[in-house]
């Protein structure tokens, strides 16, 4: 039983041209024919902590940007009870540090530990944790309720919507912030999407957030047709598509 109080999404505008995606680490063996990315540079993102980008993946930065848009809509709820808002976040694991991995190729065993220490950014592992991305957004917002993270590549944001709906129905939370972000970071994730889900669609970066509260009717999120779209937004696809359809 939910009603949508607020929603927002960040997706590439019509001015962004379709381009093939290639990776310097995979060269011609990995090409996504048609993609559109967001013109957002992580270190210039308007986040409350300017150095937070060092421990955040691109998707994590996108997630925080879109979640911060909810502030005017959740302020009253937070003032009332910060534990009553749950976060339901769909995120993939962050990127593997391909630069340092490539520097490790061919390093002899006896020099491996030293080279690993020299090549590996100590904050890199933080970028790989999807729950950290959700936690960081929650910290920025001041949400202290239950934090749920879903990382199913194909259905993550649908799982988040369904669980939020269920928790609102049972009264576990008064409000649910459902959120998700997808960025072009891990070439293997993009390749998996190309093989399994993309078909002829354009693969796009995107982020979305939706604030739900208990309502009179139950929404069956699975009924929407998420396949009849020109764009595909990775793990965020169902959430972004739900918002676009309603707009």
């Amino acid at each position: 039983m939910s009603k949508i109080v607020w929603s927002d999404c960040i997706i590439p505008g019509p001015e962004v041209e379709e381009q093939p995606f290639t990776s310097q680490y995979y060269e011609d063996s990995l090409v996504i024919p048609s993609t559109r990315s967001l013109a957002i540079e992580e270190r210039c993102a308007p986040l409350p902590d300017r150095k937070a980008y060092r421990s955040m993946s691109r998707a994590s930065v996108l997630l925080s940007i879109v979640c911060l848009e909810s502030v005017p809509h959740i302020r009253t709820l937070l003032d009332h009870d910060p534990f009553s808002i749950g976060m339901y976040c769909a995120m993939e694991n962050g990127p593997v540090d391909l630069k340092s991995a490539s520097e490790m190729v061919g390093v002899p065993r006896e020099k491996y530990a030293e080279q690993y220490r020299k090549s590996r950014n100590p904050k890199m592992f933080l970028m790989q944790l999807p729950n950290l991305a959700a936690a960081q957004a929650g910290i920025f917002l001041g949400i202290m309720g239950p934090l749920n993270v879903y990382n199913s590549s194909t259905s993550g944001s649908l799982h988040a919507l369904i669980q939020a709906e269920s928790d609102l129905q049972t009264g576990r939370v008064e409000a649910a912030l459902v959120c998700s972000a997808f960025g072009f970071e891990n070439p293997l994730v993009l390749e998996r999407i190309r093989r399994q889900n993309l078909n002829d669609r354009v693969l796009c970066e995107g982020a979305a957030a939706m604030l739900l509260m208990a309502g009179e009717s139950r929404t069956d999120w699975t009924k929407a047709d998420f396949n009849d779209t020109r764009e595909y937004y990775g793990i965020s696809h169902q959430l972004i598509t739900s918002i676009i359809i309603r707009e």
Partner: protein
Amino acid sequence: MTEQELFDNVEEAVRTVLNTAEGEITRTSMFKADLNTESIDYLDISFEIEQRTGMELDFTEAWQYIIEKKGADTTDISIQDLLDYVKHAMEQKTGEQQ
């Protein structure tokens, strides 16, 4: 490496980690008071300095060196303090190699 080149490298490393504006970091900038540096940032800064100078930087050793110079009640260090330590460590390394 000249004194200015060393400052440029350290300044760029600190700026990369703390995401400060160009020109915001000076030799007198204090890590905690002015730049709001947290413990995990020191590890990140030492990584970035090593990437730029090739100099392995141990902040525990740096801290020991600086409090020996400034006193045991030191709670914050400046960019210049760090530069002094890096210079000292580089000289020590050169001495060991010779």
